[in-house]
């Protein structure tokens, strides 16, 4: 894992905790946990999440990119941002 990826991971965790996780005090979120399965992010939450990723990391998110594989967990977002950045 790169240092950049580490930063993304920490920033995204902080963002998720601040905006979504606080509504579910009982849940311990691990990086691989699926937001949807745990019920912590709903469909509108994902729209906000995608907007956050676009503005924070300056990446262009295409329509078909908004999937569970790319946005479903902290691991997924970290990997997605890293792939998008390395592909320029």
């Amino acid at each position, binding site marked *: 894992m790169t240092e950049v990826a580490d930063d993304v991971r920490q920033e995204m965790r902080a963002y998720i905790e601040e905006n979504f996780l*606080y509504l579910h005090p009982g849940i311990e979120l691990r990086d691989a946990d699926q937001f949807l399965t745990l019920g912590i992010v*709903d469909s509108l939450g994902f729209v906000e999440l995608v907007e956050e990723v676009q503005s924070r990391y300056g990446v262009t998110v295409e329509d078909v990119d908004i999937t569970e594989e790319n946005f479903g967990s902290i691991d997924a977002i970290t990997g997605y941002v890293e792939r998008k950045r390395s592909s320029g």
Partner: protein
Amino acid sequence: MEDLRAAAARDPERDAIVARERRVTYGELDRLAGGLAEGLRAADVQRGDRVAVVLPNGVEAAVAIYGILRAGAAFSPLNPTIKHEKLAHVLADSGAAAVICDVERAGVVQDAAADAGGVRVIADIEGHIREGADPPTPPVSVDLAAVIYTSGSTGDPKGVTLTHGNMTFAADSIVEYLQMEESDRVLCVLPLSFDYGLYQLLMTVRVGGTLVLEHGFAFPGRVVQLLESEGITGLPGVPTVFHVLLSLRGLENRALPELRYLSNTGQALPAPTIGAIRRTFPNARLYSMYGLTECKRAAYLPPDQLDARPTSVGLPIPGTEAWVEDENGNVLGPGEVGELMIRGAHVMQGYWNDPEATAERLRPGRWPWERVLATGDLFRTDDDGYLYFVGRRDDLIKSGGEKVVPREIEDVLHAAPGVREAAVVGISDRLLGQAVHAHVSAKPGSTLDVAAVRIYCAERLEDYKVPRQVTVHDELPRTSNGKIDRSALSGRSE
């Protein structure tokens, strides 16, 4: 409902449901539903019993619904995020003989079932699939098919009581104007607990088409992929779905040659959104529709009228009548605003166990045996008889296509620690149409934490009812006669 059996007999190899990694053919769905019916009878579910379903969209939910019907029982589809108290109320109110859920929800469901007097919980559908014969006496059209719970403007949710006749009539009428057929492949991202989602299943099976069933609309990229890979022909949505789709980059460049219709209900689409939908999906017809669970669907706008009357919800659905009347029951002419009234075989039988609420909605009709539906919504017509939604008589909020009753959320807020007063209003929201905004004031000596208030609500309400914003006031504004001033709050929260 013999539709599933008929479709399985015609083409057992055709895909009935595609849900994530799982595909089931009509032959298999028919076998599973029959097997569950036998399992339900073995679990002592009798003809006419009510059985609740607490499942996310998927093959199991379809098996549950058709299995319950095959057993001669009636189903109550419930939101999979339903919380303890409401579930216990619904189970007790409907006198449910059983509740079907999955392992993830078994804990919540078991607690509620115990509170409702020990309702039987079936948490593993697979384990209840038996080989067996058909029920000795299948239901007829006047038999109970479903009790669908919906929030009323006051008090607890009410069970909309529907017969097999009600549901097949409504399904046929909608199939007719959408021109659905066996070759249709419908993508359903709406929960089956919402009647709009439920009817996608019922209508698709009725015509023997294929239903592509998604858990929800969380990942629009997945929806775009499915539109292409599954050759989707029909996409039912609510304004939120269309607003999110239109915000996606690259969608307008996709051809989507198979997509032949889109439909919208729940809330009206703003005119600019209608224009954007037509530019993005130039080959698809767009149906603007209006309805309520009490009659399933009331009106639809023929797509060829969209240019001439973009804000109309159109005409009564085939085989039904609708008109606008004043408070004294006089039919009103074009341009005059009054309550929309509905007659037809789609009108519900009443609210389960609630004759008072039923009498408010169902009024004496043209014939001694007939009752017509008073929608509670204000409408007008144009010179050609096309219907226009004007507003609601009550303060209902429509958020993401779902009906939200301020009173229900206010009741929860009033019970929250430290809350003195609460008022819930809808504020306009780019994606949701309206978003739930709670205004609260604290009890003397208490301070309110916005996060804590939202958490309190999230533990007690379905996700879509949890206020997206909470504003703490020293004192809620009042009108001159001392009532909480909701219009001031709606204005202030913009």
